[in-house]
């Protein structure tokens, strides 16, 4: 078990046409011992490349990586004391499950008894003991996933690396495996670095989340910190489901109140938020409201409600998503399932003003 420290890591590729592509830029992060860190971001954001640099599968163009106290830049993958689960599991198809689990121990010249004991232990833990004599071909998706995980835990490495391990599973199994991996983390109490493009996975599993875009870290933080205090529009839009509504708006003051006004709405900015926005009066901003912070109102309240026409109704069960139009802007509101609405109806929506977000128009940085 160990800390992992990444110092100003960069990765440059030379593409087919001899142009240089920067996959990861100036990535610095300290991962605590026994921490579960998730790298999340859209495809091509550099999360997998970063993981592969930690694993030793990609050369590090610039920067330093430490595992424990060891600088590992020049240490080959096999001596880094890490284990990795790949997206397609990469099980060895010509070997039985037992041999798959035993392979890494065999390579490290463990004794037969030790191998046997460790394989049985891991198989018990993952409930795949009856499958040991089967070949990967004869396993279901979930079982393969378990074998892939089992292969990493037999070695008791310092750091576990997971590269989108759940993306090949169906939705139900994914939720189940999510819980199991989390439990496993508690039992093994080891450092885990987990890459995914799925923000729900990131939110539910990570102790800390690293949001990446275009090779750059956008924000590092605990799941709920990211949700409530995103540092920019990208993080705000990436975390949370359905995604946050963004509306082009303008700030203006009137009667000692600060308002944010868009095409179809005019909302009061709460006093304590308004204090931080002194320099932005009369400037263009982006207003962000989460769908969960919109609800149906029965009577108009000045500065809190606005009119919207319902376009599509999506009942989910525990909530209803309303695709609405307010002025020129399309919004999604997630309302109580008992709310009565009809398509094309004009309704009043109330915004939870305490939870609104404002972003600078050009830089997209959070202002609150």
């Amino acid at each position, binding site marked *: 078990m160990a800390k992992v420290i990444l110092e100003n890591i960069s990765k440059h590729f030379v593409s087919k046409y001899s142009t240089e592509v920067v996959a990861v830029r100036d990535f610095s992060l300290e991962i605590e011992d026994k921490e579960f860190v998730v790298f999340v971001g859209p495809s091509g954001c550099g999360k997998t490349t970063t993981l592969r640099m930690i694993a030793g599968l990609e050369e590090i163009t610039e920067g330093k990586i430490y595992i424990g106290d060891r600088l590992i830049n020049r240490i080959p993958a096999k001596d880094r004391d890490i284990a990795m689960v790949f997206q397609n599991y*990469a099980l060895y198809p010509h070997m039985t499950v037992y041999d798959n689990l035993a392979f890494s121990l065999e390579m*490290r010249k463990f004794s037969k008894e030790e191998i046997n004991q460790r394989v049985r232990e891991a198989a018990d833990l993952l409930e795949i003991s009856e499958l040991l004599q089967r070949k990967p071909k004869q396993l279901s998706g979930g079982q393969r996933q378990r074998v892939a995980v089992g292969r990493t835990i037999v070695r008791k490495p310092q750091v576990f690396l997971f590269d989108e391990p759940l993306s090949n599973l169906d939705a139900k199994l994914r939720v189940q495996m999510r819980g199991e991996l989390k439990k496993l983390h508690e039992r093994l109490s080891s450092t885990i670095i987990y890459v995914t493009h799925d923000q729900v996975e990131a939110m539910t599993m990570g102790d800390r989340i690293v949001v990446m875009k275009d090779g750059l870290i956008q924000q590092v933080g605990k799941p709920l910190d990211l949700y409530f205090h995103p540092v920019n529009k990208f993080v705000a839009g990436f975390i949370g489901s359905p995604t946050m509504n963004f509306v082009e708006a303008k700030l203006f003051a009137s009667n000692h109140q600060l308002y944010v006004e868009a095409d179809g709405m005019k909302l009061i900015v709460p006093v304590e938020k308004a204090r931080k926005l002194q320099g932005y009066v009369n400037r263009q901003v982006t207003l962000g409201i989460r769908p969960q912070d919109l609800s149906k109102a029965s009577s108009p309240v000045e500065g809190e409600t606005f009119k919207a026409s319902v376009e599509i109704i999506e009942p989910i069960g525990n909530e209803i998503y309303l695709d609405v139009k307010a002025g020129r802007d399309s919004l999604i509101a997630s309302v109580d399932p008992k709310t009565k609405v009809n398509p094309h109806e004009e309704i009043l929506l109330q915004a939870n003003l305490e939870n609104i977000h404002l972003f600078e128009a050009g830089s997209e940085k959070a202002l609150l």
Partner: protein
Amino acid sequence: MHESFWQKLLKFYLPLALFILFLLFPFYWMFNTSLKPMKELYNLKLNPFYIHSPTLDNIKTLFFDTIFFRWMYNTFFVAILSTVISLGASLLAAYAIQRLKFKTSGPTGLAIFFGYLIPPTILFIPLATIIFDLRLWDSLWSLVLTYPTFLIPFCTWLLMGYFKSIPKEMEECAMIDGASRLRVFWRIVIPLCLPGIFSAGIFAFTLSWNEFLYALAFISTTESKTVPIGLVTELVRGDVYHWGPLMTGALLASVPVALVYSFFVEHYVAGLTGALKE
């Protein structure tokens, strides 16, 4: 829609039967000819598809008047050795080109392919000089060394396609698991590529077994000849074709190849289609 028996017969079994007839006819002709006496062979009035007075004379001539078994041994020796050499070289070359991604890996792959396109009829002249300089003239080793010149390019090309079908992650995983590059090759890549290796091997074996031009050019002593050369040079005397023994020899020489194919046919097909199914 369910096809009736007659439809199936017309669309499937009849064409199949025609193909089989077409493919097996040469074997039948060889067999037929090898059991006929000379007199019957040259009698145009008799039905040529039927053996009127079967005889074993041709076989006797082939076995006792020529050194057919020596030729068989020579051919085996050359075919097996050059197959082994070619496979070894091709496996390493194909893997390096496909996976090690050195700067010139692409051009190297292409160059090997072009090497395959140069016809032996052009190559045998410079090769003859080299063989002569190496003092391997008239020795089986001249063939063992020259056959790989056309076997390696093809086998490399075939195996490259095969290696490509193995997910890279599998090798990366093995490396993280603690295996060196060579161990990954031996424990993961080779077992997964067995069908491909089989087809490359069968191909190499058949080609060396049948090879005619180099064997004709580099070998002159009767004792060192391979079957294809031995039969043609020793059983065609002047302008007299000894059809009987000739056909017997041809039939017997095709047996090993036929056996190899029928044993490994499944692997062969799997290897050529290059599919590694998950």
